């Protein structure tokens, strides 16, 4: 059951890493919990017999030996609580589990010198409470008790941002709590016999409905450096963990001392790791000593966060309508999307909010519509940040500008590079005429497909394909290499593929790509470059 839970945890450890902002935003909580669980399971298989007491004892030992990081140590305390409570038991029932989890919760709090709510501690406490209630009202069924545990864990995790400011700012739930939820969920799925499904699925990370008020980089930057993360296993005789805890309390932060009189795991963030080691080695032998410079760890974390977006100090805000197009812009490095476009222009305030919401002091706005450029230009006077508007009038121009963004260049250089990229793009937009009209040589009936080339109405036809072909025939195709077709919300993918294959047959030298843009209004937005 716990092995299944570990497997389940493994699948989401990276997601949990990404949540990690407290106590140190080093992005390793998921990994630490996973390594702790692995050690736990390895030891469980070495249990002398199959009794609940022996297995739980072995797991507690394995967890203590292999505990890594804050979260791993708390996890080991939870398992130790289980083991102590099940000490004399051959097997366990729902009531035993409830009382064991109660013990886990107590042990978890005991191991930490300065317990903080809104973390794994709160989650295990809530779980223990819910399980006790479930046993009291419904009794004996182990599965229903685990269900109660998983539900309580889920609710408790979702509530962590309300208890802990730093989580609220980051708009995430507590990573350790999430890890605990995943482990319990894995165990429940095992009890329900869902092993097969687990192979193909991945645990869900609980999402908070609070929005991040700060991006991860900013949270990390707010924290001060903390010296060295010092961690080791102390083995000896007649160790007094309370005394050790007392002795080390003033030596640093995030102190954890857990274990028994023969082995104790100690974790502390301290400026003087030497003192800690010297003291501990006077009590017994030291094992698995790890001293990491947290400034470096912190730098690595910042790098990890930075690596997520291409523009480190320049953010790009783009005005885009349609889910598919939003994905395209985001995947190419846009920091924030403001929904909007033809017939739904965003306000200056919308744009200002987006600009203020990004972490960078320098922001490039891609309006992607003729009627939004002026609005975007007003943002500069309303913010302290340095704003540049690259005057993109269509979606393909926006994509081209974004792709041209040069990682090595500064803001000014990028503005001119992006502006140049726009001029190399031709945009075709096809939609249905809203009314009948006569424009120059063009006779247009209501609802007939009409085509715009870079904003000018130039073609009308019976079908989108006919309009597109009329427009392509007027272009110098020798200079064209790539055609990207973004089809709209009201357009079927089969029709878009049909249009694409027709163009492919006609112009086999071109690279044609079809993307579901999901935009309103335009059936097709086509980029020609």
């Amino acid at each position, binding site marked *: 059951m716990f092995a299944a839970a570990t497997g389940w945890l493994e699948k989401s450890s990276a997601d949990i890493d990404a949540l990690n902002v407290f106590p140190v935003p080093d992005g390793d909580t998921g990994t630490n919990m996973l390594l702790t669980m692995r050690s736990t399971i390895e030891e469980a298989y070495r249990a002398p017999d199959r009794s609940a007491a022996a297995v739980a004892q072995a797991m507690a030992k394995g967890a203590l030996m292999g505990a890594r990081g804050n979260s791993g140590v708390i996890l080991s305390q939870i398992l130790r609580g289980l083991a102590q409570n099940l000490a004399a038991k051959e097997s366990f029932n729902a009531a035993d589990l409830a009382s064991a989890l109660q013990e886990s919760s107590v042990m978890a709090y005991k191991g930490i010198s300065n317990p903080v709510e809104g973390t794994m501690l709160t989650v295990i406490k809530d779980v223990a409470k819910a399980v006790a209630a479930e046993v009291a009202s419904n009794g004996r069924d182990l599965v229903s008790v685990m269900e109660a545990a998983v539900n309580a864990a889920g609710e408790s995790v979702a509530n962590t941002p309300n208890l802990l400011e730093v989580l609220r700012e980051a708009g995430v739930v507590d990573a350790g709590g999430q890890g605990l939820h995943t482990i319990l969920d894995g165990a429940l799925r095992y009890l329900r016999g869902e092993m097969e499904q687990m192979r193909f699925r991945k645990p869900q990370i609980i999402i908070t409905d609070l929005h991040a008020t700060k991006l991860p980089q900013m949270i990390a930057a707010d924290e001060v450096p903390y010296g060295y993360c010092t961690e080791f296993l102390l083995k000896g005789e007649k160790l007094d963990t309370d005394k050790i805890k007392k002795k080390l309390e003033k030596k640093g932060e995030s102190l954890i001392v857990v274990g028994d009189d023969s082995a104790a795991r100690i974790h502390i963030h301290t400026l003087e790791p030497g003192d800690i080691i010297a003291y501990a080695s006077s009590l017994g032998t030291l094992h698995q000593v790890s001293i990491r410079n947290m400034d470096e760890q912190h730098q690595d974390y910042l790098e990890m966060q930075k*690596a*997520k*977006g*291409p523009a480190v100090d320049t953010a790009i805000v783009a005005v885009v309508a349609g889910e*598919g197009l939003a*994905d*395209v812009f*985001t*995947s*190419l*490095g846009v920091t924030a999307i403001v929904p909007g476009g033809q017939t739904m222009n965003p306000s200056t305030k919308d744009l200002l909010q987006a600009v203020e919401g990004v972490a960078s002091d320098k922001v490039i706005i891609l309006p992607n519509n003729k009627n939004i450029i002026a609005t975007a230009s007003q943002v500069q006077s309303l913010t302290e940040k340095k704003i540049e508007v690259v005057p993109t009038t269509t979606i393909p121009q926006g*994509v081209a500008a974004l*792709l*041209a963004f*040069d*990682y*090595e260049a500064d803001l000014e250089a990028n503005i001119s590079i992006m502006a140049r990229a726009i001029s190399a793009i031709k945009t075709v937009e096809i939609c249905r005429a809203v009314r009948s009209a006569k424009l120059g040589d063009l006779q247009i009936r209501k609802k007939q497909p009409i085509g715009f080339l870079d904003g000018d109405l130039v073609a009308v036809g019976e079908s989108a394909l006919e309009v597109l072909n009329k427009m392509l025939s007027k272009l110098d195709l020798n200079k064209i*290499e*790539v055609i*990207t077709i973004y089809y709209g919300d009201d357009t079927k993918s089969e029709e878009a593929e049909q249009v694409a294959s027709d163009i492919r047959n006609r112009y086999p030298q071109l*690279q044609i*790509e079809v*993307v579901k843009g999901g935009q309103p209004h335009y059936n097709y937005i086509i980029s020609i*470059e």
Partner: protein
Amino acid sequence: MSVKVVTDSVADLPPEVVQELGITVIPLNVRFGQKVYRDGIDLTAEQFYRELTSSKVFPVTSVPSPATFATAYEKLAGETDEILVIMLSSTLSATYEVAVQSIGLMKHKCRVEVIDSRSAVMAQGFLVIHAARAAAAGATMEELIEMVRRDIPRVDLRAAFDTLEYLRRGGRIGAAQALLGAALKINPIITMKNGLVEPVARTRSRKKAIEQLYKFIASYKKIEELAVEEAACPEDADSLTDRLGGLFPKERIYRTKTTPVIGAHTGPGLLLVAVMGDK
């Protein structure tokens, strides 16, 4: 006694250059499933790319053993008392570490200096070629070290990838991971900066990507050395070499295939230009 120069197979030196300048090349290893090959010795670039595109197993690379280095040092120690070792970037591989550690395994007394090129492929290769030429002309160890250090910032490269999947899987993608996951087809351009893989640009077609490589070389005021390397895309490399012939004597352009160890991390379709010179 002149200083002897040692490098690794990642420098992509053509065999005739190795022979002419008396350079010792230490091969890294490539493993396909259970089969282990010494880079460039048991496995040529042609065989490798055929296997890479057909094999279902993903190739894995590994550093040369300390014994490989020690044997090579020992052999050279019979001919000289000073050895200069120029290795691929220590940020990409532990080969540099092994080269340093292996000095301790030597029985002979011989001075060995190891330099981290902070680079790879022929950008590293040019450092080696220049050092070997100067060594043959009688430069001292101090002069050579000084020269290589001066040359390191003068080599550069730009690589056009067909896919970043191999780079990602091999764990060498670095900051270029920003280029992953694009919802449009992208032909990325990548470089190495101080030993680290860095993104340069995203282009929308192979042709545009190759155009960027050309423009990069055209931006040089003075070109001393130039190489065009490819992984299983000889036509692209040939036509680029022809074009570059307008900027630099074509017969002096090294037109090579990247070694299997590099190919294992880039995948087929890699086209790169390496240059030594001044912008």
